[in-house]
């Protein structure tokens, strides 16, 4: 499967220059590579929420579950539990995963369920035309906060580390090669993985220059060391100016997950009768 054959007839309606293109291209490349390496395409199931990011599933010609806002994770978990051999890739916005659906995100990490979250973290609500999100910096002036927010952002990677996620990475939409690498690693990881992509919204919060000046790729970092991971995660708090590290931040392997074996066939008729006769 060539990544060119992975498209659909859906018209792409993202703004020119949108950071989502980098995520789309990186994911298509990774899926194409995985299929060339033997993964049947039908064993990839994509899930998305609502927001600009969600449109990505219309643009990729494989199984998809286009969910509602903030509710991409529960169906993704069900898909994985139903069929443990499928690769479940969830696309979510920052409003979606870190706002409306944050309870699901925390529980999915806690369960260490084997799904991959790709967060299109543009730190602004795009499709609803420019309001602050859980990761917008302090003082962010959006259409619902014209005088600036009075609350600091959450650091989603720190939250995920505390919740039990076993793979955490960060990339940007200005770094497609790194995205491909960490998407592959995240999908290959056995357990709950999350990639926070600093994806730029060119219309409502153009951070290309800001990120370009501050990002660097991790070197000599041991992702198996939770203390090193935490230190790197805390280096930039999504608020104050600081160097922003990219790459694989945390990885914990061989942790038991939620999925278990399939149900064996049983004679239900008989079991119902047995229950009833024991209830006399």
């Amino acid at each position, binding site marked *: 499967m060539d990544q060119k054959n992975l498209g*659909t*007839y*859906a018209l792409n309606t993202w703004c020119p220059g949108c950071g989502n293109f980098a995520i789309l291209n990186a994911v298509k490349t990774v899926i194409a590579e995985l299929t060339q390496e033997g993964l*049947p395409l*039908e*064993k990839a*199931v994509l899930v998305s929420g*609502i927001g600009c990011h969600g*449109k990505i*599933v*219309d643009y990729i*010609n*494989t*199984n*998809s*579950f*286009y*969910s*509602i806002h903030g*509710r991409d*994770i*529960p*169906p*993704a*978990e*069900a*898909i994985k*539990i*139903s*069929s443990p*051999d*499928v690769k479940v890739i969830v696309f979510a916005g920052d409003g979606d995963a870190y706002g409306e659906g944050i*309870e*699901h995100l*925390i*529980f999915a990490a806690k369960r260490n369920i084997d799904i991959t979250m790709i967060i299109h973290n543009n730190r602004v609500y795009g499709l609803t035309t420019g309001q602050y999100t859980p990761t917008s910096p302090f003082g962010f002036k959006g259409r619902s906060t014209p005088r600036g927010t009075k609350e600091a952002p959450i650091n989603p990677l720190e939250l995920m580390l505390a919740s039990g996620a076993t793979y955490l990475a960060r990339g940007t939409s200005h770094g497609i090669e790194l995205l491909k690498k960490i998407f592959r690693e995240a999908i290959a990881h056995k357990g709950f993985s999350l990639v926070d992509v600093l994806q730029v919204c060119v219309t409502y919060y153009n951070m290309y220059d800001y990120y370009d000046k501050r990002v660097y790729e991790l070197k000599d970092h041991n992702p198996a060391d939770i203390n090193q991971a935490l230190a790197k995660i805390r280096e930039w708090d999504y608020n104050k100016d600081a160097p922003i590290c990219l790459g694989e931040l945390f990885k914990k392997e061989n942790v038991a997950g939620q999925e278990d074996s399939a*149900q*064996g*066939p*049983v004679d*239900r008729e008989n*079991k*119902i*009768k*047995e*229950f*009833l*006769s*024991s*209830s*006399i």
Partner: protein
Amino acid sequence: MVDFSIIIGGKAGFGIDRASVIIGRLFNQLGYRIYIYRDYPSLIRGGHTFSVIRVSSDRIAAHRSKIDFLLALNQDTLDLHRDKLKDGCFFLYDPELVKVPGQACGVGVAIGKILKEENAPEIMRNTCIIGALCKAVGIDAKTMEDVLRKEIPRELELNLKVASRGFGESRELTRVEPLVRERLPVVSGNEAIGLGLVKGGLNFYVAYPMTPSSPILHFLAEKATEFGIKVIHPESEIAVILMALGFAYMGKKTAVGTSGGGFCLMTEGLSFAGMAELPVVIVMGQRPGPSTGLPTYSSQTELHFVLNAGQGEFPRFVAAPGDAEEAYYWSAAAMNIAWKYQIPSFILSDKNLAEGIFNFDINSVEPIKEENPLLWDKTSPYKRYLNTESGVSPLAFPPEQGAPIKVNSYEHDESGITTEEPAMAKTMTEKRLRKEKYLSGELEGYKTINVYGNKDSSTAILCWGSNKGVCVEAAKNTDLKVIQPVVLWPFPADRFRDELKGVKTLISVEDNATGQLARLVKAFGFDVDEQILKYDGRPFSVDGLEEELKKWTRKT
């Protein structure tokens, strides 16, 4: 006809619930039919909990307000229920704990002393009083022991000893003769729902605990391996319904269970199910609201909520079973209908049905079996939302080679790709709604409305859900007709019109303050003449309802 009632009461934590089921099973063993109403407050320890165990030679599904025996495990029980006794002295109690005002009376059993001597824990007070009851009603020690052996999971020998001491210290007040006939299983409404779902092909049950539906979660979790299902309790009702839709996407038959408050959280997922055409069975156990309301009591206040929940217009199926047999049958049918039409399908239960204990005669239930949904024939390219004559598109489930399966909460085209085109939006809206027309047609083959009592009576009672039992019995005693619609949506209006032929006065009986079923039938042009409404969370008693009915029938 033998017909008597027992109340056992005490503090929460005394094991009243378990004891009432054991008492029910004892009389069931003697060949009687039983019904148990459970009344308990929303707390874990303390308060006043009681159960009414009604025993009859006939099938029953309602309680009467007068009782024959009172088992008072604490003072409250005697004080609160003694006035219900037909004979003011037919009560059993521990003189150490319960002071009897006035003249000495009743059967005193030194339960506390027995427990102390046997070194038994406090929880065994209920076993001791069951022993005393057996003696008082003439149940022999052997029958008592047989039932206890089956019902008691832990410390059996000690329990048997304590029961036998209670038996020994009691005295015979009357003798209940065994009946020679087939004994029937004793189940809760929730168990009947669970069994029906399993019968209908359930693969996954997903729920967040909420009274009165939590016992389905507990029952199915306990029996998961036996029934070949999986049971999941996720973080919230929002996750519950969304998980269910994920399972449906993968071809797994799934049900969820909740009550009004939990269902509030499910409505966005419900609407998604309507748009994405993902089948799901929703068990909605009603209890009084608004808000937290009376959490452990009953109501019929969510009919219009369930009929109208979720934004947008989409078909749904709603059935409100009235007893254990109907709960079993319609839970299986709801699963078949959900999958046949790819729609959300409701079992609208209420606390009185859910947690009531009934006899269950599976042989009296119409045959029903799991049906297979319409599947993709694998010849033409796959389109998840293929526009067909019936509106039902063939299903395929991931992973399916060569068939990208795309479901979508947005309006979408036949392949499941988002669209905002007006012509496609119109086409797909009509496609979804067309399914309801075909469902209505199929339902003509089901018993969507039940009729009981004097079918020639010009006065009829209109009821739904758990009020079936009390209405059928009250109608028998007052010579009225009962019309019980089980399917509430799509409403079987033509059949309802047929059943109303010859009826001059229609009296509705509902557990709500606004007459929700009356309002529904009004929308189809049917007028209810009188309404008997109860909204204190407690069920109608047979005699209480008869009194109400007589008020109205005397007028006409």
